[in-house]
């Protein structure tokens, strides 16, 4: 078996205005099949991807935001959101979807996937990754 690498997906774009957010999600889900150590990071306008209550009926586009809730089922447990990016946009954690994963070692206890980190902590996470995918 090949060595496990730390894959770090860096999301910096708002959803719907460009295709980046959706493309990132697709690559993440495909990549999840390869049993790597996956982290998702949301910085700058990327934090807008995770807002709850997205309703695209008026713009004729697919609402792909429910897919984020399925990440836990793909064993993606590490979702990092940058505090400074939220603050600049007038957002709090409460504006975002509540993403969870189930821990099979603790009788499938539901645990939070999102960790809010500072910009400095985010920088350290990027440094520690083996591969960074940018969207």
């Amino acid at each position, binding site marked *: 078996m090949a060595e496990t690498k730390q894959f770090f997906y860096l999301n910096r774009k708002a959803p719907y205005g460009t295709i980046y957010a959706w493309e990132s999600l697709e690559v993440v889900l495909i990549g999840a099949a390869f049993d790597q150590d996956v982290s998702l990071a949301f910085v700058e306008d990327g934090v807008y991807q995770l807002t709850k209550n997205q309703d695209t009926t008026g*713009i004729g586009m697919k609402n792909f935001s429910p897919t984020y809730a399925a990440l836990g089922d793909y064993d993606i447990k590490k979702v990092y959101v940058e505090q400074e990016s939220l603050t600049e946009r007038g957002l709090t954690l409460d504006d975002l979807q509540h993403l969870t994963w189930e821990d099979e070692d603790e009788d499938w206890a539901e645990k939070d996937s999102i960790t809010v980190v500072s910009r400095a902590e985010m920088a350290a996470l990027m440094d520690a990754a083996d591969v960074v995918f940018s969207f």
Partner: protein
Amino acid sequence: MPTLHTVNKSPFEKTALAACLAHATAGSAVLLFEDGIYGALRGSAVADTVAAALQSVKVFALEPDVRARGFAPDRLIEGIEIVADYAGFVDLATEYSKVQAWL
């Protein structure tokens, strides 16, 4: 006749909104749509700039784009008017002598 300015880019990614507000003359209007609606939300780093612009220009936000991004009209900066749908965008355009897009 005044101009309707349109902004469809996030104010955190492009300078379109800042440039638009710096050039929009008194009595003109600004419509925020697509990712431009992020400039219409309360509490952000650009909210004070938009609120100041409301003293001299009308600012509109397109509701379907606001809702698509997870927000309700009650999250908009006070004084911003909501445009209900894309047909409303067209109606608004006809009320102004021209439309100037800030891409």
